[in-house]
């Protein structure tokens, strides 16, 4: 590991870092271009702009314009076919200066080495995920979210792996690895293993979900610690949002992770040169890869950095939940096929089709209206755009609950016993397919939805006590699931919130979810609005069957 052994390089790196302690961010594009050029990289810039569908109040941005700067270290022996990416987000304020400094220091050191077999792209992206999205879309010449970007001038072939770096101070106590990406995608487990192995080797404390690993697996507290860590991962994965800049790489089948430096009140500190050595080690390992990382798991949950739960273990849990739905469907089928004691007219197609269509139309309204009607809402009510969007969403959601009664008034004749059974059969099978597909793509989301929706699907009939069931049904509806998840997540993060704050948080989570969909193409919001919510409405409909 040359970075530490060579005192000159170490001094150069430290000089660079001290200079960076003065705030530079707000993207000093020219300075970055000049510095990277002086280090012998091929430097390019890319400008992008994006108008958000509604203002993002968390990050205080609406019309975003920015520039990405990236320098390519050309591998001496490779013909630009493969590349690795090291990125550091650089936003206004100086909270990631150290990462940019370390990135430049590494670029300088890597440039003088001859063993690189893959091009290395050093990317400083502005406006974190939006900049990253612009760069990635431009690199692969796709446009999924309607962003404006200028085309890239230099490329390095197919990207094999990427690391994103977040450091807020020049000494750290531990390094945290973030794996959860867009739509709950995860990088190959070998990337996490690589990080863990190098942390062990260099002697840096490493965490996942910001939690240290404990050695007492067999004790109750140790076990619950691990379970909590895993639950955090489940919650983050279920949210479907990218939890770091790496999250967007996963769509392009690029293994990526974010490495975040954490400076807490521990005594033992690690300086930035050690982090540099760690990154150097990881890059040299990735550089030696003959194939893409594919040998290990892509579907896993991690109770700690050195342990994982593979798909083979967690899928049966979901399978058992899904079996309930299938058994219930079988039961209904048998009931429908066996001749009824009292002669009844068989239910018309209309009585099944109408609720299906109406609930899906409600779902479509939930998907479309919030962003469309924000301007009207802002005009008529004293709210900001973001509040307007969230409140419209909640209003449409609540209005959907009133629909079943109206549906039946439109229908001629009364609903029959056979009628609700057919409807429930359809709804149960629909839910089973929906949850099955969701769990395959994003296990955590599928599992959480199954936990709440399967009991509903199992017990609901028109003959259970109406009021009590209605309360249970509402409590187990997707919106309340989200609310509980917010509180549960805060609980797990050891930052419990009061109900008031929780409610505000809940509103902001909804707006973030909608933004994630429009900015990065996250699928959770459309999934809930267009599929899960209508499916839940069907059960609501059955409860109020007449």
């Amino acid at each position, binding site marked *: 590991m040359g970075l530490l052994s060579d005192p000159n390089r170490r001094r150069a790196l430290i000089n660079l870092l001290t200079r960076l302690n003065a705030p530079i961010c707000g993207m000093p594009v020219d300075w970055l271009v000049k510095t990277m*050029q002086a*280090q*012998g990289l*091929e430097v390019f810039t890319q400008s992008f702009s994006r108008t958000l569908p509604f203002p993002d109040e968390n990050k205080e941005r609406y019309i975003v314009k920015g520039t990405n700067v990236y320098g390519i270290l*050309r591998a*001496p*022996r*490779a*013909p*630009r*076919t*493969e590349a690795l990416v090291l990125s550091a987000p650089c936003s206004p304020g100086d909270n990631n200066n150290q990462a940019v400094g370390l990135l430049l220091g590494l670029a300088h050191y890597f*440039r*003088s*080495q*001859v063993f690189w077999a893959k091009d290395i792209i050093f990317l400083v992206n502005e406006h974190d995920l939006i900049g990253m999205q612009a760069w990635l879309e431009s690199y*692969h*010449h*796709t446009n999924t979210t309607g962003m404006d970007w200028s085309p890239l001038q230099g*490329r390095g*072939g*197919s990207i094999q792996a990427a690391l994103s770096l977040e450091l807020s101070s020049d000494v750290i106590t531990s390094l945290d690895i973030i794996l959860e990406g867009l739509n709950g995608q995860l990088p190959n487990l070998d990337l996490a293993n690589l990080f863990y192995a190098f942390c062990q080797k260099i002697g840096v404390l490493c965490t996942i979900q910001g939690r240290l690993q404990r050695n007492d697996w067999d004790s109750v507290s140790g076990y619950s610690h691990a379970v909590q860590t895993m639950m955090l991962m489940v919650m983050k994965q279920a949210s479907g949002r990218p939890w770091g800049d790496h999250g967007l790489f996963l*769509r*392009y*089948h690029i293994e990526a992770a974010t490495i975040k430096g954490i400076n807490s009140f521990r005594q033992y500190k690690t300086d930035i040169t050690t982090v540099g050595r760690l990154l150097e080690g990881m890059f040299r390992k990735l550089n030696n890869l*003959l*194939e*893409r990382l*594919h040998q290990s798991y892509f579907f896993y949950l991690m109770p700690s950095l050195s342990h994982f739960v593979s798909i083979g273990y967690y899928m049966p849990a979901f399978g058992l939940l899904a079996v309930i739905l299938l058994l219930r469907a079988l039961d209904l089928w048998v009931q429908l096929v066996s001749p009824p004691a009292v002669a009844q007219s068989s239910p018309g197609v209309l009585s099944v089709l109408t609720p299906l269509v109406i609930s899906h139309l409600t779902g479509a309204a939930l998907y479309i209206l919030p962003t469309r009607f924000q301007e009207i809402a802002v005009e008529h009510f004293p709210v900001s755009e973001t509040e307007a969007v969230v409140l419209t969403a909640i209003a449409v959601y609540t209005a959907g609950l009133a629909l079943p009664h109206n549906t039946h008034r439109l229908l001629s004749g009364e609903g029959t016993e056979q009628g609700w059974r057919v409807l429930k059969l359809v709804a149960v099978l629909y839910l089973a397919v929906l949850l099955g597909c969701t769990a395959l793509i994003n296990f955590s989301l599928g599992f959480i939805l199954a936990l709440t929706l399967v009991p509903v699907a199992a017990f609901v009939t028109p003959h259970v006590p109406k009021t009590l069931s209605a309360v249970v049904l509402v409590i187990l509806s997707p919106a309340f699931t989200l609310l509980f998840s917010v509180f549960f997540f805060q609980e797990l993060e050891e930052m419990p919130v009061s109900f008031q704050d929780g409610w505000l948080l809940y509103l902001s989570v909804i707006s973030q979810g909608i933004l994630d969909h429009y900015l990065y193409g996250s699928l959770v919001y459309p999934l809930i609005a267009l599929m899960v919510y209508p499916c839940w409405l069907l059960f609501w409909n059955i409860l109020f069957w007449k």
Partner: protein
Amino acid sequence: MAAPRCSRCACLLLVFIYSLYVVVISEEPTPGNEQHASVVENPQTAAETEKQPTEERRWEATQVDETVPDDAAANKQDLPVPDSVLTSTPPLKDEFQEELVIRPLHSGDIYASFQFRTVWETDFTRGSKVSHYRLFPKSLGQVISKFSVRELHISFTQGYWRTMQWGQPYLPSPPGAELWVWFQDTVTDVDATWKELTNVLSGIFCASLNFIDSTNTVEPSASFKPLGIANGTDHRFLRYATLPREIVCTENLTPWKKLLPCGSKAGLAVLLKSEKLFHSSFHSQAVHIRPVCQDEPCKATSLELRQTLNVVFDLHASGQGKREWSLFKMFSRTLTEACPLASSSKIYIDVTDNPEEDQFELSPATHLLSQAVVLGDRRTFSVYDLTQQVTFGTVRSLNVLIRWKSTEGDMLRPLLHAERYVAGYGLQTGEIHTLMYNNHPFRSFPVLLLDSVPWYLRLYVHTLTVTSKGKDNKPSYIHYQPSKDRMRPHLLEMLVQLPPHSVTEVTVQFERALLKWTEYTPDPNHGFYVGSSVVSALVPSTVAMNTNITKEQPLFSTFFPTKEESSYFIRVYTEPLLVNLPTPDFSMPYNVICLTCTVVAVGYGSLYNLLTRSFQVEEPNPGLAKRIANVIRRMRGVPPL
């Protein structure tokens, strides 16, 4: 018995005599040559040495008014003409020249280009069997005559030529291995000959050229025209193939060096040490064989063999970071002599950007200057003539040193450059984008684009679009040969006019085929390579092209034929592509096969055994006495016990 022994003796004797003869022949030029030359050919030598200074004088005279305050130039003319000059030999049937061009690059890197040329006045097509080789390597000569090769171009390259930083190379080549051959029109089965030829070349150059088969061979209709003299250009006799994945290393360099008359023992080839050559940003070695005119009227043809080696050394990787280059720093050797067999042996340093020595400083200073039009630009070169003892000075070794004075390095804007990438995500479809930049401020020029795409990327040709400056740019000529699965690749050639100061983008969508499970490489998750596309163009020249090619011009400027005076020919290669195909998880079939085999072998085998076996009660073996008794009883005709 006597006769065979006798004949064997005769054979031995013959071999001995022949070897003596060979020794005599081979020794003849070295010691005898000098005297021979100095005595008999003195007039010619004198004439030539006379001619050279006059030319130098003329050139410097033009130069004096501009820049050079030449006291030294005057001194140089007074130099005594060396007595022993090896250059001029009587009109031999073959001739060998060597040269090295060094171009300091803007980025601080340095580009060294070796060229070794052997011209042999022979013609394999005449049918006469050639068996005596002097300077021309026999291994190649035999290949050419056996396979009726008219032209052969082969290159091995490691790394990618960075046009934006380094400008145009003297000899372009794509990453990996490239081979293109024009066969004589007497060849009847071109494909079979090609197959055999690639296998033979694979052995000669220790490369995986034997992996060239019908799935990566194409017949370009327009992009690769013969470079030597040729009667017909029927592209049925042309074969072109690239292996983008080929890795170049010392095992390719050694056989390449062995083709040189002096090997790596003397002359410029001394510098070719693999530990330095492969410690570089770019390395390319090539062999070009073509027929050329013997003389002005061009009544007879000679065979020309050019061996070229291009290498770019990286400033940053060299360690100290000082902008300073010398022969020793580059090659860890210095020069002490020219190759004794070479008729000319020179080093050229490109000093065009350094007219007043403000960019870099060159030592030892030389006063020989030469000018040549290279790649449409008139370049000035400092020349070191290795056949002159003066060049080596008192230390008897030459170590050319270039020391920079300024430290600026900008991106260049070469007139034409091209790049390529794969767009899209997912493993079903994708899009190949080829970008061609014309940076000429006011001239548009046509380029020929050649794309050879393996069959497992199924091109959707109806999605082919060519756009420049946001408008559709209809190619004036398109030659498309569809692929056949597992048989031949796609071939797409088109002639596109590039508007001035523009980017032309060629896009075509493709679908990734699902291979059979035995067709995957051992490392399927690495991806599959698609070779570079080739952009050939006649680019408007910055100076009018000098048409009368005389012998004094450096070799590197005279390779590609130029048809128009105002333009020059260049060829640009894009980067190869690495494309991932849908790949099954190979561990799963493996497990399944293992498990099934075990289950079948143990479970089914034993069950089948149990079901089909018929059980019998076996009697214990009778004793010896009983058996004897039985034998006797059988002889007696009574039933056994």
